[in-house]
């Protein structure tokens, strides 16, 4: 089967504007370096929770949003695709190294700040000097007191009548001598305690080390950025096939081939338009047909989705949820597209209607030879309808493969947790399931290294530092996890 869509290293960042002058302060990294291949004629499922970026990815492929980076190659013959891959190789390598350096730099920065914090802590640690001072003053006081007592003792020694006072003084003197000895011992201990000093020196050495490393990384980064590896052939091919670059007329033509069915049919159909106008709009906008031919096509496609011509002259809100979704499907298919993105088409309809809708989608796929991208968070539906599935988490693909394989043998810890949290409609199958703790972190500041490591029960040290890449573990099943790829 030939490749229909080839998504390469696509990023979709939404800028966050802040401050008085509304400058970009941060990015919402909705889709971060995603690679997807969709074959012709298949149904590709994309699952993940809310905030994982699957809707953003769908919208980027549809070109409702321009990708911040990356390329989307549409309908490229396989030999041309190979050529592109070869030409891209140096660029890909450079980008990967840049990314690695970037993340390393971040890690170094964090350790620098930690070390500096510790440094400041130690410097501010006055306890030792304070204790020293206290002991000094105590020593002085006791020494003064014992000196006085000795004077009194000498006075009394000459006078034998005050013997009990003499005894008292002697006892006192002895106690004082003992405490003086103790204090002096403690004082010497503290003076010899060079631990803080040593630690401070060690930290200095470490800091210097780390700073040198970061300087080196920076140098390397700048060198890489300055590298020129553009090739004109690559640019030409990209201008032809990369829909991320299309605009104007080319983009409009591309819209005929890629269409979308939205999640909620109530809001995705204009409430002020008749059904006939809604379904005919793509034809009029794309200037494919005019006049009576439009009507014919509309009735034709309505029949194919299970509605009739008598439904033409009604508003969308007069229909039930399932029928409205059919109208949305009809609108998507009236242009005879090749690729249809289904953004959770069954979430807003009832369970009983869901099956009807899914049957309809499958029949239409066979009849019109369509390729589907089925985005959903409903895992059971995706299991039944897709050939291959990709699991997304916080803007990255964590696992990809054939549906049966992934559902039978999920490898990534997130996939395992996701699948096990789906409630099974069978009370005898109630089991103790591992609850995934915490909430999905915000995509503005994703965790370093593997994005899943704060919630992963099997997180290792390397997971905090390095981001795992998608590695093929056999039969097209790819996983991005250090545990598997160790």
């Amino acid at each position, binding site marked *: 089967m030939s490749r229909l869509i080839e998504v390469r290293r696509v990023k979709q960042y939404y800028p966050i504007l802040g401050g008085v002058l509304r400058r970009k302060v941060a990015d919402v990294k909705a889709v971060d370096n995603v690679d997807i291949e969709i074959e012709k004629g298949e149904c590709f499922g994309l699952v993940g929770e809310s905030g994982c970026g699957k809707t953003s990815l769908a919208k980027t492929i549809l070109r409702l949003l321009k990708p911040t980076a990356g390329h989307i190659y549409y309908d490229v013959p396989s030999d041309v695709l190979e050529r592109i891959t070869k030409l891209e190789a140096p660029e890909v390598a450079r980008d990967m190294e840049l990314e690695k350096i970037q993340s390393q730099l971040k890690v170094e920065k964090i350790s620098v700040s930690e070390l500096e914090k510790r440094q400041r802590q130690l410097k501010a640690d006055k306890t030792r000097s304070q204790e020293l001072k206290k002991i000094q003053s105590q020593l002085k006081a006791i020494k003064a007191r014992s000196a006085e007592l000795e004077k009194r003792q000498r006075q009394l020694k000459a006078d034998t009548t005050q013997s009990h006072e003499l005894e008292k003084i002697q006892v006192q003197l002895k106690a004082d001598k003992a405490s003086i000895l103790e204090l002096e011992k403690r004082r010497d201990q503290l003076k010899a305690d060079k631990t803080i000093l040593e630690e401070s020196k060690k930290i200095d050495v470490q800091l210097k080390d780390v700073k040198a490393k970061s300087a080196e990384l920076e140098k390397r980064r700048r060198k890489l950025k300055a590298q020129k590896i553009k090739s004109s052939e690559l640019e030409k091919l990209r201008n032809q096939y990369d829909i991320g670059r299309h605009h104007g007329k080319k983009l409009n033509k591309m819209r005929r081939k890629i269409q979308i069915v939205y999640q909620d049919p109530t809001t995705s159909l204009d409430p002020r338009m008749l059904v006939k106008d809604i379904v005919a709009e793509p034809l009029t906008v794309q200037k494919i047909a005019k006049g009576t031919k439009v009507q014919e096509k509309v009735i034709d496609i309505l029949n194919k989705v299970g509605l009739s011509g008598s439904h033409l002259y009604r508003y969308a809100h007069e229909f039930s949820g399932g029928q409205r979704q059919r109208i949305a499907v009809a609108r998507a298919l009236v242009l005879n597209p090749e690729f249809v993105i289904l953004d959770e088409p069954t979430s807003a309809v009832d369970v009983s209607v869901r099956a009807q809708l899914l049957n309809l989608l499958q029949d239409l796929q066979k009849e019109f030879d369509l390729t589907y991208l089925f985005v959903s968070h409903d*895992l*059971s539906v995706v299991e*039944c309808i897709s050939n291959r599935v990709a699991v997304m988490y916080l803007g990255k693909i964590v696992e990809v493969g054939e549906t049966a394989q992934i*559902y039978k043998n999920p490898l990534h810890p997130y996939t395992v947790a*996701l699948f096990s949290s*789906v*409630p*099974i409609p*069978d*009370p005898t199958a109630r089991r103790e399931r591992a609850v995934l703790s915490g909430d999905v972190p915000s995509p503005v500041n994703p965790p370093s290294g593997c994005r899943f490591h704060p919630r992963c029960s099997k997180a290792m040290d390397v997971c905090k530092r390095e981001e795992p890449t998608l590695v093929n573990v056999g039969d097209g099943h790819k996983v991005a996890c250090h545990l598997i790829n160790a």
Partner: protein
Amino acid sequence: MEKNLLEIKDLTLNFYTYEGVVRALDRVNLEVKEGETLGLVGETGCGKSVTGFSILDLVPPPGYIEGGKVIFERKDKRYNLLDQKDSFLRTIRGKDISMIFQDPRSALNPVYTIGDQITEVLLLHRRVEFCKQVLSRKDLTRYERSLYMKMLKSPSSLTVRILSAIPILNRFKHKIEALARAEAIKMFKTMRIPDPERFLRSYPHELSGGMAQRAVIGIALACGPKILLADEPTTNLDVTIQLQILNLIKELKKDFHSSIIYVTHDMGVIAEVCDRVAVMYAGNVVEVADVFELFKNPLHPYTKALLESIPRAGHSFKSIEGTVPSLINPPGGCRFHDRCPYAMEVCIRVKPTLVELKEGHFVHCHLYSKGSE
């Protein structure tokens, strides 16, 4: 045999709209026992949410309850909630029967912090208890003591209300509010929310969906209700968060010994959480059974079709023919007859009666009525 905490008998509800009279509920009968989780399953428009609302008489016009009784047992006295005055119902809402809503972000007031909202509930219902606690302290000024005594005797006294509104003079409320906040923090600690003080200070829009739903659950359970009405609380949440919330509900049920009426359309959640299940279709209860029994041996054709339409790998999708009927002119007799593969002649004319086939397993279907087969 546990006794029934809540009984709904022959509840009929109509909505009077421009297009006609929508017969939303038609002689609905339900029972909730102490300490059990009753699942209320059905599709959109079957009336499960309205049933929950009408228990607390929260159905807004143009909806009017035409008939039936909702009998609730409280301190060994049985009350018909539909006959009671609003002032009585207000003592029940939030205290004996609480509700959790579907969208947590819109169930919370966006201009008040979570702390404000939960102390509102606590102060409303446990005021006497808190007053007594405050009065037992030694460090009250005479002013505060007199006000608290007044609050104890007549909770809605005008003096207390006016003084609570004036900025400096209402400082006496701080003591009772501090008590309420301490209670709230205790509540959220049992729900294992990290850093409850910060949680109390945050606004609903600062919270994620799962945390907001936990806040709503906390507010609902603050006064230890006997019945918790959960109206699709996890439908809008992600699967992993749904699991957290479901586990939380199960634990809290054990701690608080409440019964739960869990309204949903997801059979998987029902299988996880419920003890007994009632299936509704187009305003009627069609089958009631123990959850294991229902899944192993569904009797009503609608229940069977519902269970079969759940997508399963390897099988093609089975759907139910036809669409849900409009309730303005509901079909006569059994409301399911036009979609039922086993429909008989009698189904079109006569409404089926309740038949108890096995102990605890009730069906409304002519297939099982005596004499017909």
